[in-house]
């Protein structure tokens, strides 16, 4: 366990000056600022909306692109980023001859990637709520303060987080095995497009394909057309696609561990 903690801290130390780390902070901030500016400048069109619809518009604008594109691409990038530090510096050999068990080195790296994804999504929640409330301060006619969906937002993003773990594990393993960016990126991109098509066409087995999960998470969480708007906001976090995502994550993580154990450092 000590080795794991040391390795995890070292991952942070190494990456804190890299784009991979800062992307996790800048991405939610940037999107939040863009939306804020958009809502601010178009406020006169939005004044008539009730507070709940305002919030759904505001949060939904991010979530719409999140499931289909932003989250999968960000994960592909993060998985590559934490592994490429070692590929570029040719440091796998020094990592694996440290007096630290190999599983610690591997697990620390993996969980650091998970940590970055979690941080990024948590910041999305924070910035969505923050900028929404800021809008109600600078544009009091937009009545963001009259409705609260902090809990629902947290649930939605937590669900997104869980449904992204399958992709993350696969991309992590691909980036561990291949030094160049194009292979994991290419495979990830093709799979993401496939996943989005499968999920948006409503293919009944799309829930089995990890790259469909973020999209599925968005489309299955709302109970559409079921009575009052309040009821629509009941969020099912643990749907079957989330369980498949977690299952894939565990299996690929363990498989990766055995690959790393046998990995010869050439």
């Amino acid at each position, binding site marked *: 366990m000590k080795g794991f903690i040391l390795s995890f801290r070292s991952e942070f130390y190494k990456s804190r000056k890299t784009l991979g780390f800062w992307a996790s902070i800048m991405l939610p901030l940037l999107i939040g600022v863009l939306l804020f500016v958009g809502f601010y400048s178009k406020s006169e069109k939005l004044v008539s909306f009730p507070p709940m619809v305002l919030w759904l518009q505001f949060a939904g604008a991010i979530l719409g692109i999140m499931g289909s594109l932003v989250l999968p691409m960000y994960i592909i990038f993060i998985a590559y980023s934490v592994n490429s530090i070692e590929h570029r510096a040719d440091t796998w*050999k*020094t990592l694996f001859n440290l*007096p630290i068990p190999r599983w610690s080195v591997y697990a620390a790296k993996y969980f650091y990637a998970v940590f970055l994804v979690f941080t990024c999504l948590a910041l999305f929640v924070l910035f969505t709520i923050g900028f929404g409330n800021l809008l109600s301060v600078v544009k009091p006619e937009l009545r963001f303060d009259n409705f609260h969906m902090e809990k629902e937002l947290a649930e939605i993003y937590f669900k997104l987080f869980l449904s992204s773990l399958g992709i993350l594990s696969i991309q992590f393993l691909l980036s561990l095995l291949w030094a160049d960016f194009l292979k994991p990126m290419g495979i990830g991109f093709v799979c993401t497009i496939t996943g989005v098509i499968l999920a948006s066409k409503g293919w009944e087995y799309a829930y089995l394909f990890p790259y469909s999960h973020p999209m599925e998470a968005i489309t299955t969480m709302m109970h559409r057309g079921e009575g009052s708007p309040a009821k629509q906001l009941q969020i099912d976090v643990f749907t079957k696609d989330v369980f498949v995502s977690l299952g894939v994550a565990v299996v690929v993580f363990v498989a990766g561990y055995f690959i790393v154990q046998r990995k*010869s450092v050439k």
Partner: protein
Amino acid sequence: MVINTEGLSFTFGKQQVVKSLALQVPEGSIYGFLGPNGAGKTTTIKLLLNLLKPDAGEIRVFGQDIKSHRIEILSQIGSLIEQPAIYQHLTGKENLLNRALLLGVSSQRVDDMLSLVQLTNAANKKAGQYSLGMKQRLGIALAMLANPKLLILDEPTNGLDPNGIIEIRELLKKLVAEHGKTVFISSHLLAEIERMATHVGIINGGAMLFQGSIADLHAISKPLVRVETENTVDAANLLTRNNYNVTEVTDQNLFVPYISKQQMGEINALLNKNGLAVYSIGKQQKDLEKLFLDITQNA
């Protein structure tokens, strides 16, 4: 023995890179691991560090089996393999601090190492901007950070200027003499190893050709007398008639095994007396290639 291997073998695909190697590295020695490029030196080092898994054979370091005591053994080894593994986006000092974090070493030790390899002034410069020699020195600092009992260095003087090479050599000698370390150092340069090693292993094609103390090696590596003369063929015939063993004749030079200074004088006099002008004559150490031939022929 600090390192002791038996029947160590490794195969890349169909090619056997290491053949039944029996390394014996005594404690407190500087063990020079010699061989031409592609002889299997780096592969052997990776086997010693458990980075590669041997097909057959045993590796014992500090008397313990590497398979069952990996962590204990690795905590006492500092290593530098091929190019130094350095994060280019961090400064030299940050590279050391990161490793100190992983090894549980104090930051004071980082400063000590920086001054030891004379990088204190460049400590806060990005390692990506370091020259090759500076990177190599940082690599050595990284290897020595945890104050290991055994240093395994793969061609550590690669890319260093003559001053740097001398510094590293003096440093390694000092570590062995004053701090009781053992150094395992690979090189393809015999002259480099001869200047500091106490023990030598010579490897070619994955097989050990010679292993022993530096004195044993000198006994095999007999020097030659090189004679530059106007007509090497006539000179060689003349010397052979006078019971000299001429080992090699080229257009410019001929070679006779060196025995003593007197013998060189006699050769010079004999050639001059018979009207063959001698342009130059001198003692010459055999180079590594010739030594290999010698050792393989004797084996």
